[in-house]
Structures are given as C-alpha cells and as structure tokens.
C-alpha cells in the first residue's frame, strides 16, 4: 500500500534555513545542508526547498545550495523559488532536484506548468499555491483566494479553480499552503485542503500550520492529503519542544496513519 509522506520544508535565505510566521519575520535555523543531512539520517520521507527571496529579488535560484543539499539526501527533493523558464527548470534538475515547485511564476505565466510537464513529465511539476480565506464573493466561489509573492499580493483568483486549471495544464502534485495558518502551530486549514483533494485527482500536499502530531494526522485523514509538510514541529525555535521524524511517525502509526516504516 502506498503510505502517507512526511515532508520537511526548508525556507532558505542565503543558504540557511529560516522559519517564518504567516510568511513574515523569518528567524534563522541553520545551514541548509547540515539540516538536510540530519533529517536524512532521521529518515524524513522527502525535502522541499524554497529559495524564498529569489522571486522578489528577481534573481535566479541559488543552485550552489541546491547542489549541496542534493548531495546529502537520498530521498526525493523538490526545489522552488523564482523559477520562470524551462531552462531554469533544467538547471535545477541537473543540480540534483527531482521535482520543481512553481507558485507565483505559474500564476503570472500558467503555460510554464504545461511546458515543464511536457519536457520533464507531469510528476516533475508541483503546483504550490498560497491560499487565504477571504469569504465567498463574486469571482471567489470557494471563499479562498490565491495570493502570490510571499502572500503579499492578492490575485483575485479562486483557489479551487486555480488548482483545477493547474492539474489540467499538467501539474503532478498540488501543494496547499494556508497563509492564515503558516507558522501558527494551530493545524492545517483542513477545509481548503479537503476541498482541493476533492477537486483534483493528483496527490495533494497539506502545508502551513502543523504544530502537533495530531495536526499532521488530521491533514492526512480529514484533509484528504497524500503528504504533509512540516517545519516548525521539527526545528522552529518558537516552539518549546521540537520532535524528531521517528517520534512523529510513531505518533502517526498510533493514530492509524501508515508511513514508510523505520529502517534499522
């Protein structure tokens, strides 16, 4: 049986992992490759790496750090941040990533999803979306709106319509980032996660808000997600106590959520 995935998310600034709250006030956690090596030893299922300032600074992604992390992890590795062309996707894959995450750039140019899927296969393209609850209104029938540029800019696009368009264009996975819950340790936004999981037939990743094992379990059951992104719970200095991957997975097993078994 296919198991649920626990994914560690790195928000990287200048080669270092940071931790934000609602997409702001990033505090330093440590060098990306050191954290990657530690999490690989701890048997994390996957790592997602966002170069979070590349897009705003209008520069290319930090390939050197991508390469350094890729040398440490022999589990899947997704990279995103400011990727705007097929050539840039190619460079990131050649640096050792398996999957490319597109977000704000895909909103500006949705065709990048189609081009990426055609060149590298659907499984290579993760459509990551920043969603905020704004209430049902004309143009936003689901009540969730898509935001871009580090949650700073509203797009007027409905979140559910956007992920369906993304799936049609060729996205192989949809990552649902709740702006309201990001870094709050109050649990994923289960309502929008479930709505996305029901609206598409590709795997859905829950993101934003996990602070306890219960939250992760909820995202993977009630939320309908195939994978859960965690970061605070692993290493946020804002939490009194961080958990290891093994502890998290044992907690999930106890709640009836199967994940990749521990390998001695």
């Amino acid at each position, binding site marked *: 049986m296919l198991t649920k995935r626990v994914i560690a998310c790195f928000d990287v600034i200048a080669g270092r992992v940071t931790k934000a709250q609602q997409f702001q006030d990033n505090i330093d956690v440590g060098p990306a490759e050191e954290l990657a090596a530690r999490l690989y030893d701890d048997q994390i299922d996957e790592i997602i790496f966002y170069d979070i300032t590349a897009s705003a600074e209008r520069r290319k992604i930090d390939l050197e750090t991508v390469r350094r992390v890729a*040398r440490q992890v022999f589990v899947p590795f997704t990279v995103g941040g400011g990727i705007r062309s097929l050539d840039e996707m190619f460079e990131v894959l050649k640096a050792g990533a398996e999957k490319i995450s597109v977000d704000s750039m895909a909103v500006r140019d949705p065709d990048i999803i189609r081009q990426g899927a055609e060149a590298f296969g659907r499984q290579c393209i993760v459509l990551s979306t920043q969603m905020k609850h704004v209430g049902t209104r004309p143009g936003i029938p689901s009540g969730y709106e898509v935001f871009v540029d580090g949650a700073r800019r509203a797009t007027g696009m409905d979140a559910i319509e956007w992920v369906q368009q993304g799936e049609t264009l060729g996205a192989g996975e949809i990552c649902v980032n709740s702006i309201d819950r990001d870094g709050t340790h109050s649990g994923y936004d289960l309502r929008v996660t479930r709505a996305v999981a029901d609206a598409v037939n590709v795997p859905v990743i829950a993101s934003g808000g996990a602070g306890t094992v219960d939250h992760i379990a909820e995202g993977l059951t009630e939320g309908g997600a195939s994978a859960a992104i965690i970061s605070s719970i692993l290493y946020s200095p804002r939490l009194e106590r961080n958990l290891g991957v093994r502890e998290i997975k044992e907690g999930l097993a106890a709640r009836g959520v199967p994940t990749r078994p521990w390998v001695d």
Partner: protein
Amino acid sequence: MIDVIDYRAGNAPSVIYALERLGLPSRLASTPEQVAAAERLILPGVGSAGATMASLRELGVLDALSARVRGDGVPFLGICIGLQVLFERSEEGDVRGLDWLAGNVRRFPDSQRVPQIGWNAVRPVRAHPLWAGLPSEAHCYFVNSFYAVPTDPADVLATTEYGVEFCSIAARANVVATQFHAEKSGQLGLRLLANFASWDGSSSC
C-alpha cells in the same frame, strides 16, 4: 566504473550523488563511444517514455546500448522510465520502446490518484543478487503514472500494489530495472545500488 547515461530529461546527477555516497566510481555517459566501452550501465529516468526514447535516439546511443547490453552482456540497471522503455510499447503516447523485454506499459486506473507518488512496499517473488541483504518487504520511493506488464512472468522479480498489482522490479539475465527510484529510496535503495555495483550479471545468488 559505472556509466550513468545522461540525457536531457534524466536525473543522472541524483544517481551519481548516490554512487558517490557509496564510494563507487561513476561517470556520466552521453556518447555512443562511452556506452560501447562501459563495463556497467545505469539508465536513470524521469519524464515520459517518448521523451526518453527521443533523447536517446538524438544522442545516437541506441545501437551502442543494445550491442553492449544485449550483445556483450554487461550488467544493466534501468530506473523508473529506464524500466518502462525496456518493453515493446508504452501506452504513454503510444511509444515504441527498446523491446528488450516482452510486454507493454499501461496507465494506472483513475480509481487511484495518478501519478502514484510516494513510498510503497516492494516484495520480491524470488531470490536475486540485486536484493541481497534486503528484507522480504521494503518501502521504496515511486513516482509513476504508468507500469510495465511483462509477458513472461519469469521477468518479474518484485511486485507492488497500487490499485493493481504491478511489476516493481523486472529482471532477465544481465538486465535489471526498478520502477521505483533506488537512488531516492533511502538506505535500502542505496543497498540495492551497491548490490548492482558488485553484480556479475547472472541471476544466481
């Protein structure tokens, strides 16, 4: 020395990094001369069967690959799309494969989320040097929308379930291939790569 075939849609760097971690000498190969001289070959793969076949054709390595693997019998490992292109034909874009193994490649039923992405249980159906020291069930990392259906059941070395039971490792003589990404399947995947590196190409343990 392991030659890892490098083509545009491939993820050869990930395979090279994994071999580096194991301390195994490897290099990228993208010319017919390199392939013809290889002692041991890995065909990694992401993307689609059609794009992979087109890339290999463009590099001009198809004949050298067949001669070296089918003719000279050097040990060969295909990964993911590198497994799917070994068969006669893929439903994905109705593409002709290398035709080293009899059978076809089909799409998963839509009753499941497609692509399959994640860690799934691999269960070998017989002993093989590739699986030496590995448990009777191991979770490995899969990313695939299509799966191979070998005509000869003897070509199936391991199976996995995703809506259907499918062939997750194919093996015939000096050719082995994993549908999962061995280079991304943690320490068990690395063990499999190490086994491949010391394999003489025969199927006896």
